[in-house]
C-alpha cells in the first residue's frame, strides 16, 4: 500500500504543482485522472524518486520513502511521460542495458529475457534495429518493456498509451492488469476510457488538488438520472448555458449530439435521460460544472 500525505510541491516562480495531495493507494490498479497541468506528472516523478517534494510524505507499506527513493527503486517499474533512449543502440541492447542497471535477471539469462519481454510488447521483429529509427509507438512499447521488467511491486506509468495503436493499447492493458493482480500499479492518464477499462479505483486531480477518489461505478452512480442526451444546432453549442452543463459532444450522421448534466430541474426540450458514463462523471467534476459535486461523490477525500 502506498500512502501519500499532504504532498506539496512548489516550483521556483513560484508555481504550486501540488497543494497538499493525500491519497491511499491499495494494491491493484489505480488510476490518476486529470487534465493537462493538473500535477499528475509531478506526483508520478515524486513517487518514482526523481523529484523531491517541498513537503509531505510518501510511505510504502508503512515505510517513509519520501527522501529515500533507494527503498522504492529496486522494486519499481516506471514509465515516464516523456523519455528517450540512446539512439545508437538496438532495441534489444537498450533494453538489456536498462535491465542490467535494474538488476533484473531470469533463469534463461538476460538475453532470453530481453527477447521474451520484447515479444510481450510486440517488438521482436524490431529488436535489432537501432532505437533511433523507431517510431513513437515502438519507443513507447520499448519503454513499457523496461517498466514491466523484473519483479516490481510498484508500477508507475505516466500517460502510457500515448502513441499506441488500439491493438497495442489492449495488449498493454492486459500486461498492466496482470501486474495489478498482486501489486500496486498506478496509472496516470487524462483518458477517462483508460481508467474505465482498467482501474477499480481512481482519483481525480486538478490544479494540484485531489478532487475525488472513488470507483468508476460509484462515480457513475453519483450522477445517475441527471444526464440527458439530445441534438443541438451548431450555433447553440457555444451558448453559455449549454457549455456549463456539457459533459460530452459528438457528431452522429452529421448532427451534433450532446450530453448534459442537469443537476436539478427539467432537461432542455428534446433531451432524454441516458445512463451516465465515467466520462460524464469526470467532466462534471473536473470541468467544475457542478461546484460542490465533489462532496456528493462517495469516498471523496479532497
Amino acid at each position, binding site marked *: 500500500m502506498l500512502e501519500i500525505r499532504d504532498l506539496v510541491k512548489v516550483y521556483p516562480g513560484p508555481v504550486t504543482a501540488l497543494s497538499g495531495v493525500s491519497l491511499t493507494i491499495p494494491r491493484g490498479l489505480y488510476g490518476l485522472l486529470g487534465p493537462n497541468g493538473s500535477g499528475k506528472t509531478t506526483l508520478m516523478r515524486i513517487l518514482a524518486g526523481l523529484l*523531491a517534494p517541498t513537503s509531505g510524505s510518501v510511505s510504502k507499506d508503512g515505510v517513509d520513502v519520501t527522501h529515500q*527513493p533507494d527503498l522504492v527503486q529496486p522494486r519499481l517499474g516506471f514509465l515516464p511521460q516523456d523519455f528517450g533512449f*540512446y539512439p*545508437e*543502440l538496438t532495441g534489444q541492447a537498450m533494453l538489456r542495458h536498462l535491465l542490467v542497471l535494474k538488476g533484473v535477471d531470469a533463469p534463461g539469462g538476460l538475453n532470453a529475457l530481453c527477447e521474451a519481454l520484447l515479444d510481450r510488447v510486440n517488438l521482436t521483429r524490431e529488436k535489432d534495429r537501432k532505437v533511433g529509427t523507431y*517510431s513513437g509507438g*515502438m519507443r513507447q512499447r520499448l519503454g513499457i518493456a523496461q517498466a514491466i521488467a523484473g519483479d516490481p511491486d510498484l508500477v508507475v506509468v505516466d500517460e502510457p498509451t500515448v502513441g499506441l495503436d488500439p491493438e497495442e493499447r489492449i495488449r498493454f492493458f492486459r500486461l498492466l492488469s*496482470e501486474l495489478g493482480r498482486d501489486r500496486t500499479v498506478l496509472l496516470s492518464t487524462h483518458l477517462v476510457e483508460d481508467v474505465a477499462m482498467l482501474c477499480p479505483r481512481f482519483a481525480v486531480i486538478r490544479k494540484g488538488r485531489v478532487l475525488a477518489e472513488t470507483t468508476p461505478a460509484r462515480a457513475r452512480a453519483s450522477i445517475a438520472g441527471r444526464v440527458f442526451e439530445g441534438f443541438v444546432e451548431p450555433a447553440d453549442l457555444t451558448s453559455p448555458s449549454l457549455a456549463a452543463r456539457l459533459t460530452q459532444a459528438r457528431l452522429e450522421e452529421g448532427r451534433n449530439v450532446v450530453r448534459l448534466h442537469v443537476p436539478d430541474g427539467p432537461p432542455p426540450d428534446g433531451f432524454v435521460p441516458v445512463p451516465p458514463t465515467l466520462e460524464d462523471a469526470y467532466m462534471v467534476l473536473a470541468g467544475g460544472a457542478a461546484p460542490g459535486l465533489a462532496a456528493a461523490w462517495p469516498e471523496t477525500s479532497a
Partner: protein
Amino acid sequence: MSPSRAGAVGRQELRALLASPLLWALVLFAAFATLTVDPVSMIPTGDSAMGGLRPFSNSPHAIARIFSLTGLLFYPFLVSILAGSSILRDDEARVGDLLHSTRLTPGEYVAGKFGGILLAVGVVLVLHTAIAVGWSEAGAYLGSTAARGPFRLASYVVPALAFLAPGAIFCAGLALAVAERTRAAMAVYVAPVLLVLSGLAGLAPRGSSRLDAVLGFLFSAFDLWGTRWLDETIFRTDRGVAFYNGAPLAFDAVFLWNRLFVLAVPLAAVFLSARHRRAALRGESGGRKAPRPSVPAPATASFRPLGELRMTSRRPGLAASAWEIARAELAHLHRQPALALLAALALLAVAEAASSSRGVFDSEVILTSGGLATALFELLAALGGLLVLFVVVESLDRARRLRVADLLHVTPVPPAAYLLGTQLAACAVIGEILLGCAAVGLGLVAFRNEGPVEAWPFLLVWGLILGPTFVAWANAVAALQCLLRSRYLTYAAGLAVLGGTVALRLSGAMTWVTNWPLLGALRWSDLGTFELDGEALLLNRAMVLGAAAFLGAVSVRAFRRSEPDPAATRARRSPSAIAREARALAPFLLLAVLPATVLSARIRSGFQGAPEAARARDYWRRNVATWSGVETATLRHVDVKVALEPAERRMRVDGVFVLVNGTPAALRRLAFTVGPAFEGVAWTVDGAEAAFEDRSGLHVLPLREALPPGGEVRVGFGYAAVFPRGVTRNGGGTSEFILPSGVVLHTLGPNFLPVPGFVEGIGVDRENRSEPPELPDDFWQGELEPVTGNVSAFTSRVEVVAPSAYTVNGVGEKTSERRESGRTTVVWESGHPVRVLDLVAGRWAVKRQDGAAVFYHPAHERNVEVILSTLAAARLRYSEWFLPYPWAELKLGEYADHATRAQGFPTNIPFSEGIGFLTRGGPGNRLPIIVTAHEAAHQWWGHLLVPGRGPGSDVLIEGMAHYATLLFLQAEHGEEARVSFARSLEERYAERRRVDAERPLARLRGDGSATDETATYDKGAWVLWMLQRQVGRERMLASLQSFLRRFQASRDHPALQDLIDAIRPAAESPAEFQAFVDQWFFDVVLPEFQVRDAVVRPAGTGWTVSATIENVGTGSVTVEVAAQRGEGGPGPAVGEGERAASAIVTIRLAPGSPRRVTWTVPFRPDRVVVDPAVHVLQHHRAEARARVGPRSATEGASPSAAAADDSAFGSAEDAPKPTP
C-alpha cells in the same frame, strides 16, 4: 532570402548567446589575459630592465601580440562551443520541425544563426578591446618595466580587427558548419582542439625537410590569429624597442591573403551548411539519415503472462553497474568521428615527433622509447585533458539531453556507478589512444632501428605517470558538473582550470605540489629512469590519486539523481550543512593533503628549496661587504680522497689544500666557501685541528700565525654530503650530481670541494643583482684575475673509492687503480697544472683511439665512433694549431640527461646523453662533431689559457671554442661543413640578439642573457673567423700560438684586447685592421645586403652581369658577389679556375651607399648572390640574392656603360675586383 526572417532568427540567437555563461566566460578570460600579461613579455625588450629604452604597454605591436595570443589560446574553444551550441540547442529543444514548418528557409535559418553569433562575438570583441584600452592606458605599465605611450585608438582597433576578428569569425563559421553537419557536440569541441594545437605547433621553428615545408605552409595558411605571422615577420628578428614603440603595424601581402582566406573559409562553410540543411530537410543524401519507415508489425506477439518469465531483481553492485554504464558510453564514444580525428592527430604527433624531433643546434634527435614517451608527454596530457573534459561533460549530460535520465535514474544503481562508469569510459578512450600512440611509437623505433624497441617506457610514462592525471581530471570535471549542473558552466570552469594551470607553469611559480599534470617536469634518461626526482614523482602521483578520490567523493555527494527542492537546496547551503559536508569529505581530502604535505617538505628541504635560497642569500648578505674581492691564499696543490656511494647519493671527502699567500700582505684568516650539502665539516691547519666561524657557508679559519707573503699553509678538511639533497622544485635538471646512473662533480662551484675565498654569484638573484662595474678602457693593461678557477694553476691528486661497477674519471692521468671487495680505488694526478678539477663516474663501456677515449652507456653506441674520432682529431689538430696538448689522453664521459650540456674540464669532459649520443647522424646533423670539437677546444681556450675577469673575456673561451670548431670542421669535413655551421651560428645570432641590449664584443658583461650569450658564442666565432680572413689563416694561427704561450703560465690573465694586440702585428694593413677592430669588437654592426635590378646580356663569348648591391644594415664590409647558375655554380663548359675568377667580384659596401656592379662571366648566370662562400656575418642572408633577368632596353649595353654605373654609385678606390 528574407532579411526580416533571417534577422528574427539572428536576434533570437543573439539574445540566447548574451544569456549564455560561456560568452561571459570568454569576456572574463579575455580580461584575465589582458590584465595578467606583462606587455614587456610580449615584445623583445632589450635592456629595458636595466635602464634602457622602455617598451610601451599600448604600442600597436604589444597590443597585437597580446590579442593574437589571447585569440589563439582562449577564443577557439569558447567561440566554437558558442557557435556550435546554437544549432545543438535547437536540436535538443526539438524546435527544428516547427521552425521549418514556417516560411523560414534553411538559408535564412543558417544565415540568421551565423549573424546572431557574429553579433555576439562582436560584443565580446568590443568588450575585450575596451578592457585592453582601459588597462593598457591606466595600469598595465604599473609594476612593469613598460611605459605608457601616447594614446591612439587605432593601436587597439586595428589589432582587434586584424588579429582577433578574422580568427573568431573562422571559429564561429566552422563550428556552425560542423554542428550543422554532424549534430554532435563532440565534433564541435574537437575542431578548436585541432586549431589551438596547430596554432601552437605553428609557432615552433621547423627544419628544412619536405614534410616541414608542407607543415609550414599549412600552419601559415591556418594562422588564424596571425600569431605565426607576427612571430616570423616582426618579432623573430628583433627590430628594437624604438621600432615596436613607434612604428605602425605594417601588413604585407602574405598577411592580407591569409586574412582573406581566414574569412573566406567560414563564409563558405556557412553557405554549405545552408545547402546541407536544405538537403537534409528534403531527405536527400548528405542530410541526417531519416528513420526507416516503420513497418506495421503483425500481431504475432504472445499474450502469455509475465509470471512465466520468473523474473527476479536485486540491487546491482557498484562495479557491475559502473562497467555496464562504461560499456554503453564506450560504445557511444567509439561511434564519434571526432574522437577518431583526435586519435589520428595524436598518432600524427607521435609520428612527427619520432621522425623530426629537434635538439640543440636544431639537431635531429634519436628518440628512444622513453625519450619519445617523455617528449610527447605534455602534448598528450593537453589532448587527453581536453578530451576528458568534453567526454565526461557530454557523457554525464547525455542522458538528460536524450531524455534517458528518467529511465536510468529510477534504477537502483549506486550514484557512484554513473560517475565511475562515465570516467571509466573517458579513461578507456584515452587509454586506447595512448595504446595506439605507443604502438606507432614502437613501430617507428623498430623501423628506424636506432635503439632498443622497449614497451615499458611507454607503459611507465603514459600509463603509470600520465594515467593518474586523467583519473584525477575526470573526477574534477565530474565534480564541477555535479556542483554547477550546467555543461556550459562546467566547460567554462574546466577551461579556466586548464588555462590557470598553463599560466602557473608559464609564471614559473609551479612546484611538484601544484603541478598536477606534470607539465615540463619530466626528463628522460636511458641511464637512470627518473632517478633525480623519482621520489617527487611518486609523491606527486599519490597526491593526484588522493585528489581524485577526494573529487570523486565530492561528485558522489553532489550528484543528484532526483531534482532537489529549492528549499532543501537552500538548506544545504547553510553553514552547518556545509560544515557537515566538509566533515564527511575530510578523510578523502587527507588522501591528497598527506602526500602533498610530505612532498612540500621534501621540496623545501631540497637543493632548490626556500631555505637553501635563504641560506645562499644570507651567504651573500653576510659576506659580500667583507669578503668580496678580497685577495686570499691560492691553491698550489690539492690532495683529496673521495668515497662515492652513488646509490645513496652520498660522498665522503677528506683532503688537503696546499695554499700559498700570493698577496703582498700577511694573511691572518683564510676563508673557504663550502657546499650547502656538506655535513660535519672539520678543518685542520698544518695538521692541527682548526676552529672556524661559519658565516652562512663561508668558513673563516683564523690562523695562529699570520701567513707571510709567499708563505705556504696546509689546510685539511673532511665532510660528508648527500648531493643533490631532496628533490627539485618542479622537475628540471642539474649539471652536478651523485646518482645511481653516475656522478658529475667539479670545482667551478663549492659542491664538490671547498673553494678558497668568497664566490661571486652565490645568493644573487633578481632582487640584488647588480651590473658588473664599468671599467676604464685600459683596464686590461694591468694584471687581471682569472675569470674562473684558481688564481694560479695547481697540481692535484684525487683518490676515489667507488663501487666496482663504476668507472671513475678525473683530471690528468690515472696513476693507480685497484679493486678490492667490490670497490675500486683509483688515483688521478693532474700532472700539468690545472685551475679546475672534475670527477665523472658512470657504468660505462669505453672506446679509445689516438690519445682519446669515450666512456659511454652500452646502449648508446651509435655516435661513439664519430665522437671518438672527432675527439682524437681535435686533440691533434688543436695541438698543431694552438699548443701541444700536455696530457696523454683526452677523455669524454657520458652522463644521464639531467642537464643537456657538455663541459670541457681539463682532460675530462662530461657529456650528457642528449647533446650528442642520441643525435641522428648524416651530413646535416653534425651535433656530436660540433659539441665534441667545441669542448675539446676548451682544453686550450679555458684551461691552458684562462682569460682575465673583465668585459668580453668569455669570448676568449666560448667564441674561441666556436672559432676552433669552424677551423676543425673545415679541415676535417670540408668547406660545406664549415659553411653549414657558420650559417647556423648566424641564424642563432639573428634570432637571439636583442638590438637594444647588445653590447660590443669587448664590452660584453657575461650576464647570462640570451643576447650576451649569442654574442659571445656565435658572433664571437664569426668575428674571429672574419679576422682570420683579414689577416690570413697562417698568420692568425701563429698569433694565437704566441698569445697562448705568453699567457699560459702567467699570473696575468688576458682580455680580449690582449688577443687583438697579439694579432695586430699579423695584419697587412694596420688601418684596415683597426677599422675592423673598431667596428666588430668595439661597436655593434650587422650588415644586411640586398640585390636589385640584376640583369645579364651577352658579351662576346661570355655574359655581362649587372646588379645593384646595397648594405641596408650597419657596418662597412668587404664582401664577395657571385654570379651563379644551377645548384652549385656555372655550367659545365666553364673550367673551375676560370669560373671562380670570373664569377665572383669583391666590393666594399658602406650602409646607405648602393653600388651598381658590372662584371663579365663565361656562362649565362641565373642569379646574383652576395657572400656566396659565407665569410661575412650578415642579417637575412636569404635576402642577399636575386634572380637575374634579361637586360632592359633603357639600360646601357656597353662595358663603358657598366663602368659608368659603377662610378655612379661607388668610389674609385672601392672598384670591384675579381677574386682569385
